[in-house]
């Protein structure tokens, strides 16, 4: 099964999740997702998702000077973002549970 299709639906949740404990700039988020096992996630998809979540009011952003290289824009979960993460997390768990049950019948 093509995981990139699955990923499209849950990238929001994944991005919110990796920002839960620590703020991050775009490349940070990308690395955390990849380190977490989402190897196939596209660079541009992550940046696009960050923009969408920010525009939806789920993230705040701030710019911090960096010693090496360009200034970095960090993204941080705000309260609506944390709420969305909790909701989407619940949705995901119940969905995954449902599918597990279905697969249990098949396998």
């Amino acid at each position, binding site marked *: 099964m093509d995981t990139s299709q699955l990923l499209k639906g849950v990238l929001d949740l994944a991005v919110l999740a990796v920002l839960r404990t620590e703020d991050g700039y775009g490349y940070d988020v990308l690395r955390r997702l990849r380190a977490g096992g989402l190897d196939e996630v596209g660079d*541009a*998809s992550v*940046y696009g998702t960050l923009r969408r979540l920010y525009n939806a009011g789920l993230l*705040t952003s701030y710019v911090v000077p960096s010693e090496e*290289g*360009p200034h*970095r824009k960090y993204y941080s979960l705000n309260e609506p973002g944390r709420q969305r993460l909790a909701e989407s997390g619940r949705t995901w768990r119940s969905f995954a549970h449902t599918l597990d049950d279905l697969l249990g019948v098949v396998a």
Partner: protein
Amino acid sequence: MSSTHTRAEVQDYLDRMRAALADLPDVEISEIMDDAGAHVVEVADELGEDFSAEALTTRLGTPEAYAHELRVAAGYPPAASVAAVAVPEKPVFAARFAFWALVAGTAAAFGMGIGGRDGFPLALLVAVFVVWAIILLNRKAELIGQVGDLPETAAVRSALEQAEQGQAAKAIAYLKSLQPAWWLARAVLIAISGLVLDGMSPVFLIGLALAGLALVSGPKAKEDRRWLWVSLPAGAFAAGVLLYILGSVIPNGGYSRSSQDYIPSRPSLPNNIYVFDQQGRPLTDVYLYDEDGQPIVTTFYGCGRPGPDYRDRDDNRYPRPRVDYSDNGRCEEITGVPFAVAVPARPSSPSASPSGSASASVDPSGSVAPPPSGSSAPPTVPTSK
């Protein structure tokens, strides 16, 4: 690590990326380029000695592909020019152009109709696509056959045939019987829209001529498919006008009017905001909200370490500190207001006269409500801090 040579190539990549996003609002583009632009620079640095334009493209894809992927993920509308950039296959190129020009011309005509007065600039787009395609079709007689052989035409045809045999068959047959009436109605709609737009003027006469053309194009298109290039845009335009009229008659008949409505952009603000009171005294710690009571937040520029320093700040509190780099390169956040202003004197202030309080409360013509008991209180001494 980044020599001037690599910088030029990185810049070229960024320029192409920006060009592929050019139809988005400016604020959004600059935010994206802040983020993703920094990413491209970082990736280029990581490549180090192996850096080349090819290596960058291998790692990230072409700038256009990168921009496209980002657009999809961010939920922006697809680039407006996609339809116009046809695949340059030699034998079918002209046919493919004619087909997509019909699609684009029809879509633009619909947008022009539904946009009301705002849709008028789209007329140029319609004219370019439609006229160009018609010229092509008339210059080469075999072209219309080639259009018929295109895979996209075949897809449309089979979709139509399926619809005619499917569950909606009766409805479609009924609609077909109404076709002549629709041809007449759309001619009237086109003529009316010319009149509404500009009264009795050359525009109206052009509208009248186009209405006549539209009227003829309906039955003609049955025999000569080339008339479709007139008939379909005319129908789409008339349908758009009809929806526009219905939309302005029926309250809240909401539909999105421009492509920019898709983007829930936050309001664009300057980097900082300074507020002064009536006496020209600077106000600090001002909280800004929009008309819906939503806090007006913008990206915060600061010196702190990423993380808790920035967590749960009031992002709608202004003015923001200014970020400054002293001579030794240290980052400093400077609070306060960097300038003074002369607040323009108000021409007539109801609370200006010290003895006005008694009469103001009685006088019914004094409709402006000054802050209550402003003059009865002892004059306050401006206290800074």
